[in-house]
Every structure is written in C-alpha cells, then in structure tokens.
C-alpha cells in the first residue's frame, strides 16, 4: 500500500509481527510509536485523511442533521467465536450511529494497549477492524494509541467514535414510542453474550454458537427506505433486550407488553441460559436491533427486515401500551404475566 507521500522515517528494523510485543516505547511519542502507526495502523486503515498525518481529520460538513456516537470496547476473551474486539469495536459504534436512521460517515479509533501484548494479536485485531470498516464502508479518519504498563490493562481496549448523517424527514428517537405501536426484533437474542461467556475457560462445555456481531447499517437503510417514519430503533447490547426496552419505556413514558412465545431464541442459547441460570432477555447482542413503529407500518417493516440476511429471523414480539408505571411486561408461554424489570447489577447465577 501507499502509506505516505512524505519521506519515510528510517527505522532500525521492521516491527516483528510474529514474536514481538507491545513496549512502552510504542506509546511514548518517539520513533517506535511512529513506526507502529505507520506499519500497523496506516497499513490497515489507509485513507486520504490519515495520510495527511495531522492531529485531527478535517472534512466538509455534508449539511443536514448529523449524529455522533462513542463506544469503548472491553471484552474477554479478545477473540471469540464469530468475531474479536477489532470488528466488535467497529460494529458497536456503527450500530449506535445507525440507530438514528443515519448513514455512517466517519470513525475515529483510540487504542489503549497493555505493555507485553503480542504484536501478532494486535495485528489480527487491527486488520479485523479495518475489514469491518471497509465492509460498511466507513473510513477510520483519526486515531490515538497509548500504552499502559503490564498489569494496568487487559490486553487491548478500543474506543471508537462515529459520525453519521440522518436522511431528511427521518426522526428516530427513544422518546417516540406510542401506545399501540408494534415492537419488532431483527433476530435471535442472546447470541453474543452466551458465545463470549462460553468462550471463557470457566465452563467446560462446548458449543457451535457464534457471536452475532455485525454492522446493521444496510438493514437500517432498507428499513428506513421502506418506512421512513420508524419511531424508535435501538441495539440491545449490554443488559440485553430487557434493558433496551425498559430504557425506551421510560423515555417514551409508556408500558410494553411482550409475548414470550414470539421472541426468537436459539436452542443453544436457551440451553446455556438454563444451565447457567441466566435469562436470555438480559444477555448482550451485538448484531440485533429493536424497532418500534406505528401499527399500520408493521407488516411493511417486518417484510423489509426479513428480506435482509441480518433480519431474516425478524419477528413482532409485542406492542407498546399506555402505562404510567412504564412497566415492561411479558405474557409467558405458560399463560401468566410478569414484569421484565431492569437488571440489578450483573446477572448472577442462582444457587438452588
């Protein structure tokens, strides 16, 4: 690749991406840092903005309503079935941007690296990130790298920020749910959280389950094209569908009624939840969205979601109801009703 039009710095030796490790010098502003930026980050993210090597990226405002979102990514393990922290850090922020109906335009990336972290792993992560950004496409136009001493980090932390442009006549926001609206989900819930949990060494059982991590920009673009008047979009990441719906219910000052039998859950996820004492409603997703729309738009929106590969298991899972308590309730498959409350602290397994 064409990394720079300027004269290249003379490095003592090239970075050892096989056995090398992150050193404090890679974050100290000297030649080692310049080399890491040039040979790793520039090589992976190469674009006109980065090539100018300024402290900032400059771009012309496209005009219109813009949105901005930021997300810090920490995950153990860094590599998990279906993805890694690199692609996750792109998907997470792209999804936050597009939940406004926006087209993602630019990303920034900040890395906090732990001294001693293998450069081979870092390269894998950065390349996965670059591929994910390329696939959208959304360029990473500015970035930062810091190195912390061994023991002060967990390998790699990545913070990404994204900006996007919202099409005219689209206003999607969490306070827009109205009683009577339909609640849709784009696919099976809990895949990411359970896949990551099973990838940790704590459990000795195996599964073919993969994280659902994915950028939802195309799916959202299709949905907004079909129904520009979507009321709410939300990606149910941490805290799962339960947390996302409780937030929307609070912000819209409504209640919600869900139907357990309509909520898509993979059998592996149900089984793992059963075993570990978790509820899939509280488990994280990284490639799913919740949509809320007027009842008359429901069928159109559902069809447009199902037409996209990332929405083929989409389902209408409930409706918005009037409720001054802002309770999210669920009609159980069993015939009773219960409140799907906010999560208190971490989801901890029950003993009995």
């Amino acid at each position, binding site marked *: 690749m064409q990394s720079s039009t300027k004269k290249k710095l003379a490095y003592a030796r090239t970075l050892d991406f096989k056995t090398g490790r992150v050193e404090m010098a890679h974050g100290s502003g000297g030649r080692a840092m310049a080399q890491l930026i040039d040979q790793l980050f520039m090589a992976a993210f190469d674009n006109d903005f980065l090539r100018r090597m300024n402290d900032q990226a400059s771009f012309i405002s496209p005009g219109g309503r813009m949105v901005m979102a930021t997300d810090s990514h920490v995950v153990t393990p860094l590599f998990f079935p279906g993805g890694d922290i690199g692609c996750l850090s792109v998907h997470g922020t792209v999804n936050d941007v597009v939940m406004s109906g926006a087209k993602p335009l630019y990303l920034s990336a900040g890395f906090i690296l732990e001294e001693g972290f293998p450069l081979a792993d870092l390269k894998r992560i950065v390349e996965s990130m670059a591929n994910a950004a390329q696939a959208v496409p959304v360029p990473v136009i500015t970035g930062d790298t810091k190195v912390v001493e061994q023991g002060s980090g967990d390998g790699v932390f990545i913070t990404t920020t994204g900006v996007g442009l919202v099409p005219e006549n689209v206003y999607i926001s969490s306070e827009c749910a109205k009683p009577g609206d339909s609640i849709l989900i784009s696919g099976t819930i809990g895949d990411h959280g359970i896949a990551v949990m099973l990838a940790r060494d704590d459990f000795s059982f195996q599964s073919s389950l993969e994280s659902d991590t994915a950028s939802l920009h195309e799916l959202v673009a299709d949905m907004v094209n079909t129904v520009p008047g979507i009321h709410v979009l939300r990606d149910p990441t941490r805290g799962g569908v339960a947390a996302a719906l409780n937030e929307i219910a609070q912000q819209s000052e409504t209640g919600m009624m869900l139907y357990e039998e309509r909520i898509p859950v993979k059998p592996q996820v149900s089984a793992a939840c059963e075993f570990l004492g978790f509820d899939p409603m509280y488990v994280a997703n990284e490639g799913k969205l919740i949509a809320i729309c007027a009842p008359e738009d429901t069928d159109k929106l559902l069809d447009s979601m199902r037409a996209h590969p990332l929405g083929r298991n989409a389902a209408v899972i409930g409706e918005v109801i009037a409720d001054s308590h802002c309770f999210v*309730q669920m009609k159980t498959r*069993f015939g009773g009703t219960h409140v799907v*409350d906010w999560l208190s*602290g971490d989801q901890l397994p029950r003993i009995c």
Partner: protein
Amino acid sequence: MKYIEAFRDGRLARKIAALIAREADSNRQYYLMEFCGGHTHAISRYGIADLLPDRIHMIHGPGCPVCVLPMGRLENAIQLAQMPGVVLCTYGDMLRIPTAKGNSLLKIKAQGADIRMVYSSTEALNIAQQNPQKTIVFLAIGFETTTPATAVVIKQAQALGLSNFTVFCNHVLTPSAISHILQSPEIRQLGLVQLDGFIGPAHVSTVIGSRPYEYFAEEFQKPVVIAGFEPLDVMQAILMLIRQLNTGRAEVENEFTRAVLPQGNIKAKRLVAEVFELRPSFEWRGLGHVPYSALRIKSCFADFDAEQRFEIPALSLADHKACECGAILRGVKHPRDCKIFGTACTPDNPVGSCMVSSEGACAAYFRYGRFRDSQNQQTTAQH
C-alpha cells in the same frame, strides 16, 4: 431443551388451572407455602399466580440459601476474605448480600480482596491447585442439594494433600427448618399465620428423598407435595395439595417422581455422613437459632475446615432494624408489609437478603409481583 419445554406447556397449564379452579372449594381459603426459592422463582417467572383463583394464597418460605445465612456468618466470611493471602470462592448471588452496615463481598472485592465467583465446588478446588501460595476459602452455603458437592471436594483435597484448601461450612438442613416454622408460636399457639400445606423441595429431595417429610405431615397434620422446579410441576403440586386438603388427608406425596425416590440418593447421603456432622444449633436469618439444623465438618477433616484453621468469632448480629426479612422468611409478613420495600430497599440497593437473590421473596415480588398489585389497585380504583 425438549425435556424442559414439556414442563412449561401453556395448554397443559390451562387444563390444570381449570381443574384447580373447579376443585378448590369456593367457601374456603387455601394457604400454601412453597419452601424453596426455586419454586418462588418459578411462580414469579411464569406468572403462575395469574392462573390461580383468588382463594389460593402462595406463601414464600425460607428456602433461599443466601437469604437465610445470618449476618454474623456473612461478617465472618468478609473477615476471612480480607485476610492476607486468602482467596474466597463462593456461588453467584452470595456476593451481593449486604451486611447491616451495607458492606458486601462485592464491595470488599472492589477494595482489593480476592473473591471469585464459582459455579461449582470443583472450581474452588482447581483454584487451590493452581495457586499453591494462596489459601483458598470456599464459602459453602446451601441446603442438602449443594452439600454432597462440598463433601466431594473435601475428600478430594484430603486425597491430594491440598493443604491450602479450606471450607467455611454453612450448609443447612431443610426438614428441621420446616419443623421450626410449624412449631413457631405464630402458627402453633396464636394461629396468626394460616398454613395449610407445603410444596416440598425439588432438588433437596433428590438427595434426601421423600421420607424425611413424613414426620411433620403426620405430627403437624400438614400435607406435603414434593414438586419439581418447572411451572407445570408447581401447578400439579397445587392441585394435589388441594385434593389432599379437600379430603382431609395430610400425606407426603411426590409429584417429582422423575427425580425423587423415597430413599433419596443413598450414595450422596453416605458421602455427606462421612464428612459432616450435625451442629447442635445454628442461627438462621429470620428463624433464629434452630436446633440440629446445620452441618459442620467432622474433626477427621479438620485440616480443611476454615472454622478450625482460622479464628472465627461467633458473631450474632442484628439485621437492619427496618428490615422485615425475618418475618417474611417465616411467612408472617408479606414483602408489601415492609416499610422499606421498594423505597430504601430495592434490588439495586438491597437492605435485606430477601431482596438480593432472585429466589428471595422480596426480589421476586419486586421484579414480578408489583405489577399485579398495581394493576389490582387500578382496577379497584376504577370500580
């Protein structure tokens, strides 16, 4: 999953609900206690109360292992975890239980104590093997269900000569707790609490069998139906209790025949008897000191007994004075009778242990039951 889904079938539930509605005598009230937190959870999670006629009242019993651990023992565990070189291992929701001063294992973990959540006693043993320079304290809690697993690791530690592994034993016994509730003055003498029958424990009974309940079915004339933790199990057990009560029977019946034998799990019981012995008395949160209701590690395994290896003072600490957990655990009060329920005491900032575990009566009511009451209030207001 098929095996599980079969016990959550809505159509069957409606059939049983119709039978319950038909057979429950409309001229009387039925007060049934589900002893176990697992049943409380199922009742709340699946909305079983919605399927029952108003004359059937479910009372949440004290069968939540983290709820009944007294403050003093929790304070002991916190002190152990703060000792230099100690790694304290315990099961999930134990971490959040607050002391009267608002401290908890999670909080002292944040202050630097090495506390690890484990899924099994074996994990704690593995941690001991991997960290020979550390002393591992396994905070063992639970009813008869978890006791055999603790016995296994103590025996393994002895076989391996693992001198850095210890157990802080808090295992308690179900039958003595049920007897204690039935002997309480509120029930026996004053008649303040009506209690007509019990849904007997599921997992506990897989270990101890159905026979231990025969004593109080006969002595106290209360029917017991042992039931699994799935919602259909609970529905079926309620129907069986109503049939017993309607015909004046007080027997031990087993709904959970797919897992519970009259004699229980003989191997597990033998293992427990080998490693543990009865404590003459043990404090339960809410029930006070209950004779012969808990186990301690036998002296031949003293090397692995945290109580014998470390100085652990016997602390008897009072609960937070506004907390009604004690009365709630005895079935004397309902969570909504507690002044601080849902105000000062919520799942995010629990004051009492019943608000911590999702099996706890208060947490279950906060999470799943409040809506029912607020809906009832709205309906009443409309009339």
